């Protein structure tokens, strides 16, 4: 087999790969968190009594789920500056464009996830909270939202992982992320296996960290008095991750 461990190791420990990984993680986190907020707003709009708000929410999900993510990415990066010349400025970086495109796109998916979470909450919960004299905002924040979060953790974690992989699409708009660096290195050295393997290791490690965080978060939302202290909780969470 023609696999050069030295090249592989050099790639794995190189500054460029680390830089690329950091960019990918940063983009994943900001884009996904923005998408969660967009999804939350859309889902609440969808459940409202106002027909206009419901319509806007439905249309958003319809449009941005239908158009391929790559098309949306290219549109934001190439077409938007043409439509709005003020975006030609240097502050409109590939990172910003990718953040915008990916969170708008992902927001449509998160809207459906949050909506399913809202539907999962027993209607007696709102009834009891209203009976106490709580205002609508208070009912949502203190009673509905915590329960929705618990329901949507697993599918949202899925979306996080998907988002990490989708960030590699941003290499198409010259964002210097993990895949871009991999391609550049390969174009110089023609060592495919070593560089792809190094990139794969990075993705594996990053996803593992996400999964550990998910397991920890799920334990926090167990709502049991038997929940242990902080450290023990994290260790059990890691163990729980291995068992899956």
């Amino acid at each position, binding site marked *: 087999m023609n696999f050069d461990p030295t090249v592989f190791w050099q790639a794995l420990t190189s500054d460029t790969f680390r830089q690329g990984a950091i960019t990918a993680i940063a983009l994943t986190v900001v884009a996904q968190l923005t998408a969660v907020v967009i999804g939350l707003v859309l889902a609440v709009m969808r459940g409202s009594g106002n027909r206009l708000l419901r319509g806007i929410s439905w249309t958003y999900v319809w449009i941005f789920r239908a158009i391929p993510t790559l098309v949306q990415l290219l549109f934001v990066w190439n077409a938007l500056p043409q439509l709005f010349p003020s975006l030609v400025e240097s502050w409109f970086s590939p990172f910003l464009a990718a953040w915008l495109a990916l969170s708008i796109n992902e927001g449509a998916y998160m809207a459906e996830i949050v909506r399913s979470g809202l539907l999962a909450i027993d209607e007696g919960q709102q*009834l009891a909270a*209203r*009976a106490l*004299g*709580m*205002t609508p905002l208070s009912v949502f924040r*203190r*009673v509905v939202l915590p329960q929705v979060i618990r329901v949507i953790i697993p599918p949202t974690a899925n979306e996080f992982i998907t988002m990490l992989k989708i960030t590699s699409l941003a290499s198409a708009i010259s964002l210097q992320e993990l895949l871009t660096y991999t391609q550049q290195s390969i174009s110089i050295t023609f060592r495919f296996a070593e560089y792809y393997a190094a990139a794969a290791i990075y993705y594996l490690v990053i996803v593992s960290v996400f999964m550990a965080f998910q397991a920890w978060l799920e334990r926090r939302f167990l709502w*049991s*008095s038997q929940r242990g202290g902080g450290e023990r909780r994290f260790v059990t969470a890691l163990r729980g991750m291995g068992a899956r």
Partner: protein
Amino acid sequence: MTDHKPLLDPALLGAEVVEPVSTVASGPLLEAVDIRKRYGRNEVLRGVSFGVERGDVKAVLGPSGSGKSTLLRCLALLEPIDSGQVRLEGRTVGVRSSGRAARLPERELAHQRRDIGMVFQRFNLFPHLTALGNVMLGLTEVRGRSKAEAAQVAGDMLERVGLGARVRFYPSELSGGQQQRVAIARALVMNPKVMLFDEPTSALDPELVGEVLAVMEELAREGMTMVVVTHEIGFAKRVASRVIMMDEGEIVEDGTPTEFFGSPRHERTRRFLEAVH
């Protein structure tokens, strides 16, 4: 119950319980005036009228589907009514006081609901909060108490319903009877003028019914005004000051327990009592 502290303690609950005598209106504390309510073609309440005097315990009996639960939700201002009035201390609640009887916006309804406590058949405790957290929530969110103060008051109230050792437990870790007692504490801690119970023991295993009824009896003895939708004939006989029979969205009988169970006037009441005995 093992503890002897009263459930209602003005000093514990705060100053708002002490009412100047002048504002205490004569007449019923809570009054339903010709309440009508329909869901689509189904007329659930067909002109229901009755009053509950201060300190009264009104038991509401009737077959399922007779509109008892809907009536309670209307009284709790959780459901809009099509026509009629709900009066609390002589004041019409749930609608604008001037002009046409338009329903108040949810924010203003929320304000009026603070005076009405509600206990549900399926408890409806908040699963993400401990027993203490459940009882505290109304105090911090609605009454504007500090967390420390609310924890103190809520802990005391849980002790009064016999759950002092369970404050840190989550609803999923409590028996049905314990959950319902937490739910009663959650409503009671808000210091309501009237407590509404919607079949509070119907979802309980038979051996757990007693502990919930004991708390309710204690509450009645201490003078709380209560409306109790129930299938517990024994409780109605023992505790209620008046018993109502509902059937097909109407009140068909309204009397003292002695009258109601001894010599029911209406044929439907007689048939119902035979069926449940």
